[in-house]
């Protein structure tokens, strides 16, 4: 009820005329639906552009974090590093997730300014990749650790290289975990607001959350447009999660029981 109600409210707002949006009591179920706000958001205003930016940034940063994080996690899970570095490195990586993101906002803003990356997608991709990395490393490290070593050893003895064994034997077996991790990263990147707000001010580089929030202005709040855009924003994540649902459940419960 608490989870669904706001979504329902948002969906209905996006379909109501402005008069009906503010009627008291609100027309809960019966109203005259209109797509005017959707037209307004995506045709008249630049929400299509925001959507594209969000998609590019989210997909590339998720892919980047998965590639780098998976390799790092595999190394941490399997190789014996000196000075108990396995544990220390892991904790250090985790600790980067512990401070509030806002602390890094100003330093990152200055860095990106000096690198001339303000108002670019590259800046957001880099930051989202970095912020997703610890999560990927920790999730994947757990999945790798649960996998019996025998299989990789068999692959090595069979003549495969480390990387080959990882690609052909290990990754297919942790695919459910990989899928679950990917969904989380995608959601985080897709919904991220703070850095996107700080680092992008131009239409071309703005992501959807920033774009939506931007409709709250000094003079008026465009509830209809915001709701329309937000409703559309839900769709890709929903589709992706549904497509991976089969894996998600297995991934989330992976390691819970020995199988």
């Amino acid at each position, binding site marked *: 009820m608490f989870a669904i109600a706001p979504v329902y409210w948002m969906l209905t707002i996006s379909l109501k005329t402005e008069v009906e949006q503010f009627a008291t009591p609100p027309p809960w179920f019966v109203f005259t639906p209109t797509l005017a706000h959707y037209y307004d958001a995506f045709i008249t205003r630049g929400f299509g552009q925001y959507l594209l930016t969000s998609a590019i940034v989210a997909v590339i940063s998720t892919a980047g974090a998965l590639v780098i994080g998976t390799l790092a996690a595999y190394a941490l899970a399997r190789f014996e590093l000196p000075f108990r570095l396995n544990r220390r490195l892991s904790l250090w990586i985790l600790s980067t997730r512990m401070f509030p993101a806002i602390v890094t906002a100003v330093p990152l803003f200055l860095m990106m300014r000096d690198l001339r990356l303000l108002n670019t997608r590259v800046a957001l991709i880099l930051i989202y990749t970095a912020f997703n990395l610890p999560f990927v490393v920790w999730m994947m490290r757990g999945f790798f650790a649960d996998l*019996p070593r*025998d*299989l990789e*050893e*068999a*692959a*090595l*003895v*069979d*003549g*495969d*290289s480390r990387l*080959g064994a990882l690609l*052909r*034997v290990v990754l*297919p*077996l942790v695919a459910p975990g990989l899928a679950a991790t990917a969904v989380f990263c995608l959601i985080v990147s897709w919904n991220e607001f703070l850095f996107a707000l700080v680092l992008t001010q131009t239409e071309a580089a703005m992501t959807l959350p920033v774009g939506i929030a931007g409709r709250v202005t000094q003079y008026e709040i465009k509830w209809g447009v915001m709701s329309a855009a937000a409703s559309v924003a839900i769709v890709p994540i929903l589709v992706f999660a549904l497509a991976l649902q089969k894996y998600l459940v297995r991934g989330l419960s992976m390691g819970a029981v020995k199988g």
Partner: protein
Amino acid sequence: MGIEFRNVTKSFGDTKVVDSLSLEIRDGEFVVLLGPSGCGKTTTLRMLAGLESVTSGDITVNRERINDVPTQHRDLAMVFQSYALYPHMTIAENIGYPLRVRKVNQVERAERVQRVAAMLEIESLLERKPRQLSGGERQRVALARAIVREPRAYLMDEPLSNLDARLRVQMRGELKRLQHQLGTTTIYVTHDQAEAMTLASRVAVMKKGRLQQFETPLNIYNHPANRFVAEFVGSPSMNFIDGEISAGTFVSEALRMAVNTEVAGQVTMGIRPEHIEVLTSPQDGAIAASVYVTELMGNETFVFLTVGPHRLIARAPADFRAEVESKVWLRLTSEKVHYFDCKTEEILTQRRSDAT
């Protein structure tokens, strides 16, 4: 292909898991590493496979030092205790995997997989996934995966220990036959002395990381180098009695017996169950004993005996009958008696090598 371990030591921290092991394995030999769990036999195998680093010493294959050669370039095949079949691949893909990573083309790969599958009678399983197979079938697939690429040697880590007793005996025979057919050097790790005796051309008995004896199964059985080997090999186990020999007589509590040996002093006497004859009437020089319990095995009877404080096991014919606590007399085949040093547990009797 000859394999040699030269003073190989493996330490984890301060503990030496394998302690200056030297072994020379000849081309085409079937060598079994035998020992209780924790004796370093699996570590030895894993060092040869390159899955564990060598702390000191050299391992050579065909006189070429392989300590630093990565696993994938050693061209050895290994059968794991867990079989380690790739769960996401079909049986055909599993068997073909070593060929795939060697970039063997698809046609030849399919052909070789087919040939090996036929040899191991698993052709009907090729399209299935490992989880749909029984233990015995998985075992065959693991073997097929090892055989398909014709490696320089096979390494087997307790490959039969996950099978039920009947299947184990059957696969044991097939393994021996297969090795004979292929003629490839095989190193096989087990804690099951029966497997070691039946499979090996030579057995290396290990204890706490140290090699105890490396000889043919027959020599290991008949001429154990020390008390550990004597006790570990053979089922039921050899009997041991501590005592003293002086003036041609072995004396222990509740037991006196004339012996014909040059050994003297404090010793441990060892005798195998089949070298104790159980008599139901007194006889000159026989040792008085009482029956603790008898176990009829079908083809023979194990007689558990007490002689004063000592407990002994003897093998008797299947038709041997004796009540619990009844009195019997024992005659020991004196030339089959072994004497071990009480403290070092090394053999004291003169060693002879049986013709093999």
